[in-house]
Structure formats: C-alpha cells, structure tokens
C-alpha cells in the first residue's frame, strides 16, 4: 500500500479499507475504485440505490458585494438564473475558450455562492479565480477541507434518505438544495444533484460526521440492497449519461461548444473566453464530441485514434463496455462533418481498424 503514501485521504478512508475496497490514486487522492464489482455497483445505482464517497470534491466559497458580477465574468453560465437554494452547472474558461474546469454553483444567499469543483482542479481553479478578482470586491476561500460529501444515487435514493429526516425531500427540485437540515440528526447541506444519470442527492456535512452519516444511510438503504460504490461505477454511470469528465471530454484544448455544452454558456453577458467562442462559432468548430457504438469487437479506450477512409479524424475521450447497454461504446472528438448519427468510423485498437458507428447520446436516459 506504499504507493498510497502521500496521497490525500477523505474522512471515510478507514471505512473504505474496512469494507475491503480497492483503493487507487485519483487526482492526488486515495479513493475507492470498487468495493465488490463495478458491474454490480453500477446496476445497484441504475436499479436501486448506491452511496459514493465524493469528499474529494473541492469547495470554494465566493462572497462579497461584487460576487454576482464576478461570477458572471469568470463563469460561462448566467448567474441570473439562480436564486438562493438553486444550483447551476457552468464552465470556467481560459481566454482561448479552452476549459479550466466544469463545476456547480450553489447560491447560498445574496452575493454568497459555493462552487463545487473537480478534486484534481481545486488548487488550479482557486488560483485562477483569485488572479481574476482584481477590481471586484469579493472574498474567496478554498473551504474544501471543511466538508465531507457523499452522493446517494438511484431510484431508491429519496426513499432511503427520507427515512432519516422529517424534512420533505420531495420539496427539493432537481438542481435545488437545502441547508441546515438534519439527516439522522446530523446537520447537512443536501442537493438534488448527481453524476450518474439517476435521481439522487449529494450531501455535504462536517468531515467528522461523515462516517456516522455513511453508516446511517447504509442502514436505511438495507431494505433496498444499497451498495457502496466506487469511482469505477461513478465513471461508467456518468459516461452512459454523457456527462463530461475533466481530463477526458474537457481540458484546456477543448471548448464547451465542441463538447456539446452550449446549454451552459450564456452569450448575453461578458465572460472570460467569450470572444474566442464567438470566433469559433463564426469560423466553425474544429472538432465535435460524438457518441459511437462498436460494430466490430473490441473496446474503445481513451486516446485511441479515430479514422475514416484511411484518414485520422479524431480521438476517443472515454470508452468502455457499457454495463447497462451491454455494448462497447465510446465518446470521441471527430471532425464536425462526421458528427451525425449513422456516420461510420474506424477505431484503431492495438494497430487494427475496428468498425464503429456514430449514435445519438446520451447512451442511457432514465425513464421519468
């Protein structure tokens, strides 16, 4: 276990070890990748309920007189859509239009926001926003260490958590949250959000309460056969739902327009990277993210090359065997002309061209 020395550990680390989780490095953290089986954990979330430790996520507080104006400037989405208790998904861009990170913005109160960012990007994000705060009256704090976080996801997520609180969870809409409610007597912030394509909640609590809350949720979920789930299942679940992962679908060389995330970009305001995106719109995209399904055997993987008629036309960002569809599927950046369902592609797997076809995404959409 020496390779885990020096990594950051969540407040639930010991508990994962006790549960026999396989631990891996992820963005500088020692995280559980699976407990029993990625396929079983994946199915638990699609069919019942699963619980994830996501305490590694970064939390940055932004408040002060100009907090709204400042976030309008550093983020792509329109903060005007928010009010206290609401959440919006946004991107943060470089001047070039490339992506610093994707994140959630929780509006706590007037000019008081909480940004929830990718674990591996926390420092970078914090420095980025600090560097761009000149001229704004804002205070920002990296308060990541003040929170433990668990995600409870799946069709039985609400029923599981409802057993632990008098607060009516039905009153929290999708991308809404509630602060200072008790779950099993522990004070939490709870939001109806997630990264799985299922209904579910993300629950933030003081780090020293994380273990107690985890145990209470596991107990409440017993009747639904709740399973602890690792990063492996989190990745296959988000991938089937076509939710991007920084370092795969997003990085400093990809723009939200290429990634198909224009719903999170508001051109009605000024923001860092806007000029680059406007230029990109005018000149046409260089690449576009598509979903594809293998026709031949073989599993596509990140960075495999994509060909068409003997010419390289793109690269795979994520690929695996889809546990829900039981097919080998992937996401890839390709030349925009090929971004249509039915287009034929070749995925290079170990030096051999394997046929694939572009399909509509998301690969999986839950029936509401």
């Amino acid at each position, binding site marked *: 276990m020496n390779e885990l020395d020096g990594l950051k550990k969540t407040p639930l680390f010991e508990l994962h070890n006790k549960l026999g989780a396989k631990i891996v490095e992820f963005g500088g953290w020692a995280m559980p990748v699976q407990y029993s089986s990625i396929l079983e954990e994946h199915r638990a979330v699609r069919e019942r309920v699963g619980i994830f430790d996501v305490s590694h996520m970064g939390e940055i507080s932004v408040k002060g007189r100009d907090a709204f104006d400042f976030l309008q400037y550093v983020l792509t989405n329109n903060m005007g859509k928010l009010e206290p208790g609401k959440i919006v998904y946004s991107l943060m861009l470089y001047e070039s239009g490339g992506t610093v990170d994707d994140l959630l913005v929780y509006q706590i109160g007037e000019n008081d926001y909480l940004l929830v960012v990718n674990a591996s990007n926390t420092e970078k994000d914090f420095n980025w926003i600090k560097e761009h705060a000149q001229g704004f009256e804002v205070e920002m704090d990296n308060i990541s260490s003040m929170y433990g976080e668990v995600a409870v996801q799946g069709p039985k997520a609400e029923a599981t958590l409802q057993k632990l609180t008098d607060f009516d969870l039905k009153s929290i809409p999708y991308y809404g949250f509630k602060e200072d409610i008790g779950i099993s007597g522990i004070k939490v912030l709870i939001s109806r959000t997630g990264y799985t394509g299922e209904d579910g909640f993300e629950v933030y609590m003081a780090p020293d309460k994380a273990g107690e809350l985890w145990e209470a949720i596991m107990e409440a979920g017993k009747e639904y056969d709740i399973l602890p789930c690792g990063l492996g299942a989190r990745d296959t679940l988000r991938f089937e739902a076509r939710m991007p992962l920084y370092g795969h679908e997003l990085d400093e060389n990809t723009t939200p327009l290429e990634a198909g995330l224009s719903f999170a970009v508001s051109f009605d305001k000024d923001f860092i990277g806007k000029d680059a995106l406007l230029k990109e719109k005018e000149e046409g995209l260089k690449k576009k993210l598509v979903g594809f399904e293998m026709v031949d055997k*073989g599993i596509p993987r990140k960075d495999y090359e994509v060909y068409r008629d003997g010419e390289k036309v793109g690269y795979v960002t994520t690929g695996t065997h889809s546990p829900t569809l039981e097919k080998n599927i992937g996401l890839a950046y390709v030349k925009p002309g090929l971004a249509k369902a039915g287009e034929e592609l070749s995925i290079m797997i170990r030096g051999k061209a394997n046929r694939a076809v572009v399909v509509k995404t998301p690969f999986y959409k839950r029936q509401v």
Partner: protein
Amino acid sequence: MNFPDDLLYSEDHEWLRVEGNRGIIGITDYAQEELGDVVFVELPSVGEEFKAGDNFGVVESVKSVSDMYIPVSGRVVEINEDLDGAPELVNEDPYGKGWMIVVEMTDPEETSDLMSASEYEAFVKESE
C-alpha cells in the same frame, strides 16, 4: 485466494497445466481479482506460434486493458471460444472454464523456470 497445487505459475500471473506435451494456459485467481469484472478477451488464432514471454492476448476489465504473456514457447492448438460470449468465466472459474489457450509446447524444459503453487503464493503475498 486459490492456488491449485497441480499448476505452474509465472510472475506475470498466468498459470500452466501440463498434459503430456500440451500446456493449458489461463490467468490466476489473483490476476482476475486484481482486474475486476472481465468484459472482453482477445485471443490468438489456432496455429500461431509464440516464444516464452511473448504477448499472446489481451484481457480487458471495465476499467483496464492488460496484456497476457505466454509462460512457455509453443504453437496454439486450441482457444477458449466460450470467452467470446461469456468473458465473465475468467472471474467465475479462472482455473477451469476461464482457461485461455492450449499450446503444443516446443521446449518443455522451460517449465522449470515457472513457480510451484507455494512459490507463487509467496510471490503474490510479497507483491501485496
């Protein structure tokens, strides 16, 4: 974890069952557990020849892609075609229904380079 006595083992976590000049090859219980759910296996064609240590196939789990290395030199005479539709056999029965290939060994003396069950068990414990 299971280490059957009648098999030989390589440092790359393959096992070999010797039957005359034929060798049956698969991956160990330890290997399948490290990989997790196996979802795809790529095997060579019957007739292909390999030298000990050559990469003869690929086993993929949900998250990872791993090469398999042949523990002895030989010519492939059979492959486990059941793995095509049921790669999970590698997890369920790594020493039985999850076998990979059968070779006709060209240099049976190479088996002396491989580990016994107890040696392999010690090797695995050490690497943990």
